[in-house]
């Protein structure tokens, strides 16, 4: 699925150069679940952006199903994001003026899905995360956990191959966290998604079958046979 070879990402911040990623090699197979941990500023989110085609590496290649995302044009990358990759963000990133169903529909707009079909699929996706009764609620009318469910529905409505989650439980209390993790876990299992999640939460990391720890741009991957 994913094959990262010698991936480096260097930022310039004023006169300072920051190596967010430094020659990372990583392979993620179809249907894998990888949890990424590490200190703040260690390069976790940068890795996720490389996997999601949101950013390009300074050096190295990020192959997704044999296609090097680093070499794709912005338009092609946008297409890949629209069709293959679902994102879940820590702050949910919902459009505040659109209701739950419209927020989910927004992910189908670039795929050219007709309005009626969009509405049907968006309602189905919300149903699958337990929000079938909240279709017309605005984000401001939903709790944090419900907003994150909407964000998850938006990520899965296009039936992506990959689900990338950047600290999806970071803003939630423990009960909500467990609820959201249960939803993500079941989606991963039921849909055979390739699931990569960045988290600070060690309790979540302990349950992951594969754990990657990133420090100062370097990665160390370990297998968890007990998970």
């Amino acid at each position, binding site marked *: 699925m994913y094959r990262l070879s010698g991936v480096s990402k260097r930022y310039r911040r004023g006169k300072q150069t920051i190596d967010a990623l430094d020659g990372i090699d990583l392979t993620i197979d179809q249907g894998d679940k990888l949890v990424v941990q590490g200190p703040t500023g260690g390069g976790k*989110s940068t890795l996720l*952006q490389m996997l*999601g085609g*949101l*950013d390009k590496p300074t050096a190295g290649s990020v192959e997704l199903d044999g296609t090097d995302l680093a070499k794709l044009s*912005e*338009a092609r990358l*946008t*297409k890949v*994001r*629209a*069709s293959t990759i679902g*994102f879940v*963000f820590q*702050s949910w*990133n919902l*459009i*505040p*003026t*659109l209701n739950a169903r*419209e927020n989910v*529909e*927004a*992910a189908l*707009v*670039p*795929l050219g899905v007709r*309005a009626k079909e*969009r509405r049907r699929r968006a309602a189905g996706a919300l149903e699958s995360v337990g929000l079938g009764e909240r279709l017309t609620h605005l984000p401001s009318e939903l709790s944090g956990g419900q907003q994150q469910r909407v964000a998850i529905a*938006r990520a899965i409505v*296009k039936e992506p191959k990959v689900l990338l989650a950047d600290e999806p439980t970071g803003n939630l209390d423990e009960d909500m966290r467990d609820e959201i993790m249960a939803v993500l876990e079941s989606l991963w299992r039921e849909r055979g998604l390739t699931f990569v999640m960045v988290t600070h939460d060690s309790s979540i990391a302990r349950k992951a079958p594969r754990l990657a720890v990133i420090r100062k741009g370097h990665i160390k991957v370990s297998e968890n046979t007990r998970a």
Partner: protein
Amino acid sequence: MFFTYLRRELRRRRKAAVVVALGLALGIGLVITVASVSTGMRDAQDEVLHSLYGVGTDLTVTKEKAEAEEGGAKPQRFSIGGGADGEDTKRTDDNLMPLGGFENLDDSVVDQVRQQDGVAAAVGALALTDMQFKGEFKPGEIKQDQPEPGEKPKERRMFVGGGGADVDVDSFTVTGVDVTESGVGPLSSSKISGGSGFTASDTNALKAVVDSAYAKDKDLQVGDTVTIKGKKFEVSGIATADTGASVSNVYIPLKRAQDLADVDMKGKVSTVYVKADSSDDIGAVKSAIDKNVDGATVTSSADLAEQVSGNLSTASDLANNIGKWLSIAVLIAAFLVAGLLTMSAVSRRVREFGTLKAVGWRSGRVVRQVMGEAFVNGIIGGALGIALGVGGAWLVSTVAPTLTATTGGEQGGPGGGPGPIGKALRSANESVEIALHAPVTLDVIVLAVVLAAAGGIIAGCFGGWRAARLRPADALRRVE
């Protein structure tokens, strides 16, 4: 999705949308009001020129009198016939004299002018003054000093005494017009409001058209007669000047005027009225006549417009200069404010647009969304602006300030003469009062819509440019 998103966003950012729309509305409203007032000014000026010049007349040709001889210009003379001893002392005299100050032209000049390139029509007119004296002239008697009683006889002084006059003087202007051409000439600035005007067969008719103001003053009606140089002319029509002063009190056929004048005016005209093929040709026609007709003074409405002063002129300058630049300045400011506010709104929505790009929205789609919102803002501003502008124009029209156009001066200046222009220019401080109206034309509304759309698009470009440059990774990183 596009319209739902657009509508909700505009509702969410109501305050910013209202500020942008009001800014654009102010600019567009000002443009409409100023444009309408300018149109009103132009109409008022046209009306003034029209009243002085006549519809259909683009140029007039006159001839200035040569320098006066030393000792000043000769005064006009008229005579009152005396009677022999013992005759009745009651007298009625009628003098029909050409207006002074300008030389008359041979009517061959009319043909000469007519033959110039770009001339559609040219007619001659002869302006005269009829001065009638009616009353009793009592001759004086030769008398001798009488000695006082007891006074020593001395040489007696002879003197004339006891004479005098009790005379009514009636003076009015008479213009001889070419009855074969009604579209151009001194009568073209008037409408026949009663009876009928001249026809081509009236060349030698004893028919007169009387100005309505003069007819009212003298209680003349169609079918009455006016006496000019002893000839009775039947009033066939009443002419009402479109605006302001009329050219003449009485109009009669040109040939009759030439025949009746006290001095030999046969084959003479005082003014040639010219109509050009098109308004674009006026300059060329003027040059051609200047060049080819000896001693001609050619005056166009533009020359006349330059001599129109008074608060109409001042207000017109104000509307055309300060008003125009003020509108442009406000409009530019409104566009800039709209653009900057849109950019700022995009900056506040970095996460939103970054997220949309992350889920697969192309930059073009995001830019379209921003442009759409700005465009609708512009249209709302345009609609408000049209309402404001129409309101402003309506207010001006309702208040309808009276503007005064003053023409001429003692010196007459170029283009003077016995015609309407001469009349306007010679009469110091002759004023025409016009009520200012500010018509909102379709052109102005179209201009407003175009400006509103332009304002929206410009604002959208600012915002769109900002949105297009957003990279999703940067947008999401900034949130962190």
